[in-house]
């Protein structure tokens, strides 16, 4: 790469990086600051927030700023548990997505050029119908009277295993999460794999590498940036997802997203909801930072 430090070059750099920076500022930094401010306030009597300054017709009610939501958060290990659990579900979903998406992305990338766009279109086709409708469809597929359930239980029965209920279980939540987020893993993987030079594989073969070695020593390391961006695109949304556990989950499948939603819609406790959201944002930032560090070109080049 040619390194230039001319003035024109710098202007161009700003022009290119300006819009994304502005986007981050408006849609990430500003809302985060609002949230941070909200987390320091008191919930209002009728929902919403209590005033910061003493109300003019100070009849009743409280006002001001406080750190009590943070104290409340750290006062009970419960909230740490729910974070850990959400992270576990997100990690599992990401891993399953990766295992399912990789062969598919590889298949698309290695098929004839004229079929590729059609195949990518098929991957994103589910987005044509509403996400909630697709999740409700899984309720029918996993329901106790469904063909799928009967088939699974007949199969298990043949081995003498007691029948299982699929719907309203952690399994159903995982199925929903993976199903919804699979395209987000396939697409970055595909864009990465598509760019690989086939000559590399030919060279490896000429040097005596078998199929597994060609994959593990050539394709996989080169695809790592795609793996990391796909993982981030799956992991982070899963962490905040509340609809899937709400609809498909059983009695124990609460995730951090449900808890936050509940603070705003059920408990009318915006400050505590904001505190939870900030904690989640911090956790996500930490993970993104780690992923970026692992995915940095130097690490890959070293291998």
């Amino acid at each position: 790469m040619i390194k230039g430090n001319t003035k024109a070059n710098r202007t161009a750099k700003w022009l290119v990086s300006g819009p994304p920076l502005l986007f981050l500022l408006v849609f990430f930094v500003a809302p985060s600051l609002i949230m941070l401010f909200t987390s320091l306030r008191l919930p209002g009597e009728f929902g919403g927030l209590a005033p910061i300054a003493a109300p003019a017709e100070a009849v009743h009610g409280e006002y001001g700023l406080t750190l009590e939501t943070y104290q409340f958060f750290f006062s009970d290990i419960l909230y740490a548990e729910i974070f850990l659990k959400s992270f576990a579900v997100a990690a599992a979903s990401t891993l399953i997505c990766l295992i399912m998406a990789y062969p598919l992305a590889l298949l698309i990338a290695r098929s004839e050029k004229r079929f590729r766009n059609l195949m990518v279109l098929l991957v994103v086709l589910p987005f044509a119908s509403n996400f909630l409708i697709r999740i409700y469809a899984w309720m029918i597929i996993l329901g106790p009277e469904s063909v799928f359930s009967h088939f699974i239980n007949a199969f298990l029965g043949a081995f003498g295993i007691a029948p299982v209920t699929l719907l309203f279980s952690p399994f159903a939540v995982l199925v929903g999460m993976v199903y919804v987020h699979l395209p987000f893993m396939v697409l970055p993987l595909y864009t990465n794999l598509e760019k690989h030079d086939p000559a590399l594989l030919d060279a490896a073969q000429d040097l005596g590498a078998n199929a597994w070695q060609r994959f593990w020593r050539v394709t996989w390391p080169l695809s790592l940036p795609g793996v990391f961006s796909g993982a981030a695109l799956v992991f982070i949304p899963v962490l905040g997802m509340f609809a899937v556990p709400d609809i498909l989950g059983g009695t124990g499948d609460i995730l951090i997203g449900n808890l936050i939603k509940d603070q705003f819609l059920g408990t009318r406790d915006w400050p505590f909801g904001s505190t939870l959201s900030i904690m989640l944002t911090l956790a996500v930032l930490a993970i993104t930072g780690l992923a970026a560090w692992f995915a940095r070109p130097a690490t890959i080049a070293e291998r």
Partner: protein
Amino acid sequence: MNPPGRSTALLALLLSVLLLAGCSSQEQNATTSGENVLHLFNWNNYIAPATVKRFEQSCNCRLSQDYYADNEEMLAKLAAGASGYDLIVPTGNAMDTLIRQGVLKQLDKSLLPNLKNINPAYLNSAFDPGNKYSVPYAYTLTLLGFNQEKVKELGLPTDTWAIIFEPKYLEKIKGRVTVLDSQRELMAAALKYLGYSVNDADEQHWQQARDLILRAKPYWAAFSNTSYVKELAVGNLWVAHGYSNDMFQAALDARKTGRKFGIGYSTPKEGAVLALDSIVLHQSGTRPDLAHQFINFMLAGKNSAELTNLTGAGNPNMDAIQFIQPEIADNKAIFPDRELLARLEMLQDFDRKQRRLLSRLWTEIKLRNL
């Protein structure tokens, strides 16, 4: 009326409502141009179309309706500046909020001769003593719905909360029971079963209720606010904790699709939650004359009965009973007798500290096992 759920879509709704509210208020102020329009802010499907038509003929005006699916949604919309509504139909605790915010107009009872039709048991609630602001419209009970054949076959009692809390009964219906995904409603059922008030805020009583819930939780299939209606009707669920109008719907669906079983529902003898919806006059309304005319019209037995015949909503109107289909009117779950009525309670709001503690208890219930 209960929030018919779909809580998942609510967040999106709430946001769009906040955005749209600004626009709708302008649109509604354009009614001063001589046309007679009454603006009603009502629950989805909470008035029979035939009733609307008859009212429009009788008053020579137009009834314009906006809808909400949840009290919180209605409050949020008003808080965001929606205005121009003559009438709103909030549930007790939401009405309490509106009264304390001072955004309601007092009723002129001289314009409401039909008020005498209301059963006195539904007047004078804690939220509005003397009914200065509100006229009872309809109500929902939180109760138990069940598959009649299965319950009979397994010899289970249907008139007590024990069926969703006691392991000796739950063992027979494991995985075929759901309870409401609502902190207040489920705690209310547990508190009632333990012999406390649904508005009890004693932390020790809450912990007893939590332990009761945690002991029963392994037997429940899920916490469900909406899907239980369909699952009961197709036979996947055998017992569900839910709202009377939903059970009415489930029973109707099961009958219509010709299932081999019927769906029954009953109010537990320990008592239950009563959600009474009342008509109130909003400050921003411009036609109090039409509003009073509408209230008085809806207080006539025949008009009031149409809603119950349509949705199975409980009816506080004594004059309406004669117009209600007998199988609904005779249903003890929708029309509780005096003895049971005394054990029904309306939910009152907790203060912010109690709400936060209850929320933590609820998280514990969701996350932990006994």
